[in-house]
């Protein structure tokens, strides 16, 4: 017997492997080397059609009805024959309109109706719920079979009874969320998921074929032998004819029919066939390869079923578990484990794709439109909300499936539950197929048809399932509500010749198609509804039909120009038409009827932007369209993806332009500011230059004119002139210096230096000045060197400047200046204190501005240039430091600067 831990770890290991495959697929897609862009992977992903139901249920159904399981696979085979016509058209339209789900598709066909999208979503969720519960049942059934086969103790120690299904549901929810909602972008393909699904299809095929070969050729000696033995069992011999199928040929046909619709219109099938399709031409391969897959995987269903019935004759074994029970019975535990993995593949694949497809529909077609309409959601904030919403939906869908399983699951066989869902998906066939080939199918008609079909389905299949499970009185089903048998869900109007599925399919299709056709015939579709009808009906590529006839019809030149202008802009459109007029030497008059050549020209112009198919459709609509207004066409064009893309690009461009304009404006403002600053600067400089110049000129003129001047006075005047000239020189030097430092053009020499040493140098340079003014300078320096990187000369300049300022502004009587250098681990700090009059708080910031001189605090005007502190500030900032001035308690001020240790 297989130990439980082995079964569980193999299961989780397998899920991990799947995730690795998906991860690899996503990585390859991100790298632009898609692995799913391949017709074989595409085909294997379609095989997600074969679920846990196929894997376990087919055998169960074959054991009960013989060939009765086959319509489920013959239907898709028949449908595949029409894929080249129908599916390609759907794929093509879906690409044109960026379709994300089947609800989206139907809604788009009928004028992008929110109501239809919502209704389809509701039908899908309610209808598929049994199907998901079926997978949960299949997985938990296979677990329990593996655990409990042949009298293993009931208490497995891992799972508690029937809650297996709940755990399975939760794990699958996590898995689906990981697979399907890694990205926010909803239109993006799930390449990794598709890769994983294709891989699972391979695994389930190999597993099922392995057990089939084992049963047919190992237990029995070939199929002939097996059938010969089966012939001896009366109940099996009976299964070799059509009589064994309840409902006979009618059931056969109805099952074929709903399977034909299911292969395309189950939400997950639509997802893999249409939404995840990479290349329309892959349909070519899938058309024969997918039926071949179905053929091969079903080849051994009957042999396994017959062998199971014979091997377990008389024993009470659920026929749905025969695939597992046979290898277990013969002691082939590893084969059983492989089969179990095949079943797990089949079920998980279905649940993952289905829950992703449903959650996309739920969020895109039901919840988001409602939330937007109720203003619960703002468009800007949608990304994150959408992701959470879709995750929530996946969880919700799976829990709904679990709920159905708990309520109903035990009372039905696998196949019956699945067929209930098939019948629901069949409701989508009339609006899609009629919508694709009949322009007259209208929005109201589709809405009425879908609603009627859904109600009939719910009444004839869903309601009885609740009644049969004891949640509703069984009298509702038999004889019928209020005891009226004509109302009985299984035999409406006493139609008793069909089995419940066929009965439901018949009535629901009758109502669905009937309402759709009749309401459409009496409806007057208008606007978008009619336009979309035209696009969808003529939707296949013009080139496919080989139709190259010239256009016939009447359209005004102005309308054509308007059409093109709408797409490519008025200017370009006008230029194009002018070029046309010149080339053909014709005069284009707006009110004239366009001739055939102009129509072709217009179509080509349109095709440049929207592609040939859309251009053809637009043209055919504008020319042939019965009551089609040009305004209507404009609307449709606005909504095609190409136009949206085009306008997005335009928007992008205009945004860029706007940004550039703003940038330009900012630069302009800045330039203006700089201009004002420069003006001020020049003005101030000129003032500062004029002052010494004035003295020099006036005094020199005096000396020049007054020949008989007193020699002492002459000497004095000349002395002043020398001083003023020095002042002028200093000023010019500082201005040059300052502009160099401030522009940062010269960063100076970067060397390692000892700031204590630098300070000593500055102190020496100012000692003469201090002596002249009778000022005492005291200093306090650290004993160790204060190392940092900087420009030595500039730093000397700063300290000298601060010291000489302090000396100049010191107290007249007892001048005292104190310098202190403090070395912290991360910065160096220098303080210069004086005992002068101090600086008023409002001046403290401004003294570091250029040409700001302290004027009203001292008598007279000091002979500064007004640039000293500004230069200091620039130097310190260039070194990455800070400089400021504070009040010195006890009078005077403290000038402080700091430098970071790793000064630049």
């Amino acid at each position: 017997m297989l130990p439980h831990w082995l079964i569980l770890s193999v299961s989780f290991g397998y899920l991990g492997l799947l995730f690795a495959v998906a991860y690899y697929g996503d990585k390859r897609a991100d790298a632009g080397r898609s692995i799913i862009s391949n017709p074989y992977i595409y085909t294997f992903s379609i095989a997600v059609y074969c679920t846990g139901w196929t894997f376990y249920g087919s055998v169960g159904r074959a054991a009960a009805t013989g060939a009765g399981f086959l319509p489920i696979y013959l239907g898709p085979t028949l449908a595949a024959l029409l894929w080249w016509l129908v599916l390609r058209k759907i794929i093509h339209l879906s690409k044109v309109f960026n379709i994300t789900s089947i609800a989206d598709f139907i809604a788009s066909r009928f004028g992008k109706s929110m109501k239809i999208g919502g209704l389809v979503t509701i039908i899908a969720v309610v209808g598929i719920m049994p199907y998901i519960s079926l997978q949960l049942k299949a997985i938990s059934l296979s677990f329990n079979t593996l655990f409990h086969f042949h009298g293993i103790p009931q208490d497995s120690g891992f799972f508690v009874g029937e809650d297996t299904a709940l755990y399975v549901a939760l794990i699958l929810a996590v898995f689906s969320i990981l697979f399907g909602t890694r990205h926010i972008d909803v239109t993006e393909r799930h390449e990794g998921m598709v890769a994983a699904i294709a891989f699972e299809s391979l695994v389930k095929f190999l597993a099922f074929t392995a057990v089939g070969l084992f049963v047919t050729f190992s237990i029995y000696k070939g199929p002939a032998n097996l059938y010969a033995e089966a012939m001896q069992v009366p109940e099996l011999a009976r299964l070799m004819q059509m009589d064994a199928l309840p409902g006979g040929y009618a059931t056969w046909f109805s099952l074929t029919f709903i399977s034909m619709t299911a292969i395309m219109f189950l939400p997950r099938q639509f997802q893999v066939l249409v939404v995840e399709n990479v290349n329309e031409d892959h349909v070519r391969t899938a058309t024969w390869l997918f039926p071949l897959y179905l053929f091969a995987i079903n080849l051994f269903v009957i042999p396994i079923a017959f062998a199971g019935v014979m091997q377990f004759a008389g024993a009470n074994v659920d026929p749905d578990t025969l695939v597992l029970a046979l290898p277990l019975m013969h002691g082939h535990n590893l084969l059983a484990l492989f089969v179990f993995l095949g079943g797990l593949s089949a079920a998980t694949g279905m649940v993952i794709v289905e829950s992703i497809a449903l959650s996309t529909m739920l969020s895109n077609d039901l919840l988001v439109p409602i939330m937007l309409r109720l203003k619960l959601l703002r468009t800007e904030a949608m990304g994150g909300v959408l992701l959470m919403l879709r995750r929530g939906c996946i969880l919700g869908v799976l829990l709904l499936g679990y709920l159905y399983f708990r309520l109903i699951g035990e009372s039905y066989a696998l196949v019956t539950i699945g067929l209930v869902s098939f019948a629901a998906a069949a409701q989508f066939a009339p609006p899609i197929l009629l919508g694709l080939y009949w322009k007259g199918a209208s929005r109201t008609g589709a809405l009425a048809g879908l609603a009627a079909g859904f109600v009939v389905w719910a009444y004839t299949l869903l309601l009885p399932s609740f009644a049969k499970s004891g949640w509703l009185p069984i009298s509702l089903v038999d004889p019928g509500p209020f005891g009226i048998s004509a109302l009985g869900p299984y035999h409406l109007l006493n139609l008793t010749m069909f089995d419940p599925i066929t009965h439901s399919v018949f009535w629901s299709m009758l109502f669905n198609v009937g309402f759709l056709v009749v309401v459409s015939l009496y409806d007057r579709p208008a606007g978008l509804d009619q336009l979309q009808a035209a696009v969808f009906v003529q939707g296949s590529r013009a080139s496919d039909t080989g139709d190259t006839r010239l256009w016939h019809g009447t359209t005004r030149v102005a309308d054509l120009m308007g059409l093109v202008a709408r797409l490519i802009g008025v200017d370009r459109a006008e230029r194009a038409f002018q070029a046309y007029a010149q080339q053909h030497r014709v005069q284009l008059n707006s009110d004239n009827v366009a001739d055939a050549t102009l129509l072709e020209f217009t179509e080509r112009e349109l095709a440049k932007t929207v592609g040939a198919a859309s251009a053809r459709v637009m043209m055919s609509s504008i020319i042939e369209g019965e009551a089609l207004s040009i305004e209507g066409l404009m609307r449709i064009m606005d909504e095609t993806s190409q136009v949206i893309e085009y306008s997005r690009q335009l928007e992008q461009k205009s945004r860029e332009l706007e940004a550039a304009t703003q940038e330009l404006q900012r630069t302009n403002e800045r330039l203006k500011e700089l201009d004002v600053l420069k003006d001020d600067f020049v003005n101030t400089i000129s003032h500062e230059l004029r002052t010494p110049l004035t003295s020099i000129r006036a005094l020199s003129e005096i000396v020049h004119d007054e020949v008989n001047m007193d020699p002492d006075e002459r000497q004095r005047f000349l002395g002043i002139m020398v001083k003023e000239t020095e002042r002028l020189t200093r000023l010019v030097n500082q201005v040059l210096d300052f502009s160099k430092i401030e522009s940062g053009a010269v960063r100076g020499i970067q060397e390692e230096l000892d700031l204590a040493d630098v300070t000593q140098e500055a102190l020496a340079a100012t000692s003469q000045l201090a002596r002249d003014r009778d000022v005492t300078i005291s200093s306090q320096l650290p004993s160790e060197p204060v190392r940092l990187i900087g420009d030595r000369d500039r730093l000397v300049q700063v300290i000298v400047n601060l010291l000489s300022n302090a000396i100049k502004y010191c107290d007249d009587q007892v001048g005292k200046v104190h310098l202190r250098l403090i070395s912290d681990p991360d910065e160096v700090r220098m303080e210069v204190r004086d005992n002068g009059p101090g600086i008023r708080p409002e001046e403290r910031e401004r003294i570091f501005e250029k040409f700001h001189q302290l004027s009203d605090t001292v008598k007279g005007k000091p002979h500064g240039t007004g640039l000293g502190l500004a230069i200091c500030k620039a130097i310190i900032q260039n070194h990455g430091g800070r400089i400021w001035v504070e009040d010195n308690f006890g009078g005077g001020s403290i000038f402080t600067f700091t430098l970071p240790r790793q000064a630049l």
Partner: protein
Amino acid sequence: MPESKRRNERLVALFVAALLALNFPLLSLASVMKQVWGIPVLYFYLFFVWAFIILASGLTLKRTRDPSGPAPEPPAGT
């Protein structure tokens, strides 16, 4: 008539034929208690028709030089 249109018509014809072959009354002809090579006729017939459909559709859709068909696709199996 262009080849592509002819191909579409062949597919529709094949569909109709398959639908008829797999339903009443033709199907009932196979519902007898006999065997072909040891396999019950009903099963043999169903799987035989099935295989035939697959073969026929594969041949019908085999790529031909078709100027009006879709643009050449990238090599398969990349």
